[in-house]
């Protein structure tokens, strides 16, 4: 947050200039103008608004934004400005928003002017690894070529390394990937995502891969408050609404569900909401003699949520 607060640059403006604005001083660059001019603040605050929680992720993206602005300033003054390496690794528990963030990050990096195209190519092991000798390299290269200029997102990247089979072609795909990550740093941002422990195994087996990735970002689990917030957002996008009782029921539901096994953060919430919608539909259908208005069709009631198995277990 603080890294890019416009207030900082304003104080420097006041310190360095009295009568003129900073823009007019020769040999200086107005960081604030670069920052607001590129619409970066709009992009970042949009991210803050739409993604709930995820503080480490947001901090890192703000840092990257700051770096890109400074790079641009350096270039204006004729200083050396190498574009930074932005390959990333997203690790975290199921449902912590790795895929969601990866899909958004192309938009953010494109808005920041780091990548040329606003597109994400999302692949898994199947898209990279071939079935017989000599099949893997062209397949991996094809995917890399398609992703050029944008973001290549490799979901469940740990599947690329199969320690139980030493002749596995995943290794070959990884080697090509590493080579391109190094050589085409300006053309491509590679994001690997996966569960923490399994990704650690992958990195341990490939120290070169780990060191080529500049940003290792850990996605924390959501707090109950954040999950409730997420639930409300999801309900809103589905054009439903929770009434007051349903809200507190949802809160209780989240607390119960978090203590149960196989809890997968936002994904569990999404599934729960899908089931709540089912129950609401059957409730409305049971009383189908009555006329229904838009409000009734939109409202999820506490009883829809409390009928969940989670409360009885």
């Amino acid at each position: 947050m603080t890294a890019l607060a416009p207030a900082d640059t304003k104080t420097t403006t006041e310190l360095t200039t009295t009568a003129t604005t900073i823009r007019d001083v020769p040999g200086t660059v107005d960081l604030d103008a670069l920052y607001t001019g590129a619409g970066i603040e709009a992009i970042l605050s949009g991210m803050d608004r739409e993604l709930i929680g995820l503080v480490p992720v947001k901090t890192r993206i703000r840092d990257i934004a700051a770096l890109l602005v400074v790079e641009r300033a350096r270039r204006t003054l004729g200083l050396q400005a190498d574009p930074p390496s932005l390959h990333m690794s997203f690790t975290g528990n199921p449902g912590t928003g790795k895929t969601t963030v990866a899909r958004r990050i192309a938009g953010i990096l494109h808005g920041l002017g780091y990548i040329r195209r606003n597109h994400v190519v999302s692949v898994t092991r199947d898209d990279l690894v071939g079935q017989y000798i000599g099949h893997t390299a062209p397949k991996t290269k094809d995917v890399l070529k398609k992703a050029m200029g944008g973001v290549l997102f490799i979901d469940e990247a740990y599947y690329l390394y199969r320690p139980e089979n030493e002749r596995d072609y995943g290794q070959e795909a990884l080697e090509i990937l590493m080579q391109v990550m190094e050589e085409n740093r300006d053309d491509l941002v590679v994001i690997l995502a996966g569960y923490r422990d399994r990704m650690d195994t992958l990195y341990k087996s490939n120290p070169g891969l780990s060191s080529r990735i500049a940003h290792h970002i850990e996605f924390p689990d959501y707090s109950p408050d954040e999950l409730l917030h997420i639930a409300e957002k999801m309900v809103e996008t589905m054009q439903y609404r929770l009434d007051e009782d349903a809200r507190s029921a949802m809160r209780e539901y989240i607390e119960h569900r978090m203590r149960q096994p196989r809890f997968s953060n936002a994904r569990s919430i999404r599934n729960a909401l899908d089931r709540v919608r089912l129950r609401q539909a059957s409730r409305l259908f049971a009383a189908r003699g009555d006329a229904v208005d838009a409000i009734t069709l939109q409202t999820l009631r506490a009883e829809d949520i409390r009928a969940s198995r989670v409360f009885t277990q």
Partner: protein
Amino acid sequence: MRITQGQFSFLPDLTDEEITMQVQYALDQGWIVAIEHTTDPHPRNAYWDMWGQPMFDLADAAGVMMELGDCRQANPNSYIKILAFDSNKGFESIRMSFLVNRPAEEPGFELVRAEAAGRQLNYTIRSYATAQPAETRYR
């Protein structure tokens, strides 16, 4: 003898930046870009070798440039051209084709005379380069 062929043949050889821009134009039109190479400079040589397959679903020229780099490394002393195929109905043909690589030395063509019946003479051209087997040309 400097061989010219296809688009931009009246210009000096394109730089990599210029090639990138041309390729990007083709991709922005939704055309499919392919790379081909040959060591036979004859103007009627229609059978060039494909470098990999035509590249479908590309968004950015960097992918093509990566392949071009590989092709140049494997065939430094060859003619390499970039093609853009338009699959739209009504066109369904090559819309762009230009040379992006040429051998360091191009020996040119010999005029060959063949005596026919009577005092008739038939003329043809034959590249000095093709006198050698394909692998040993332009050494």
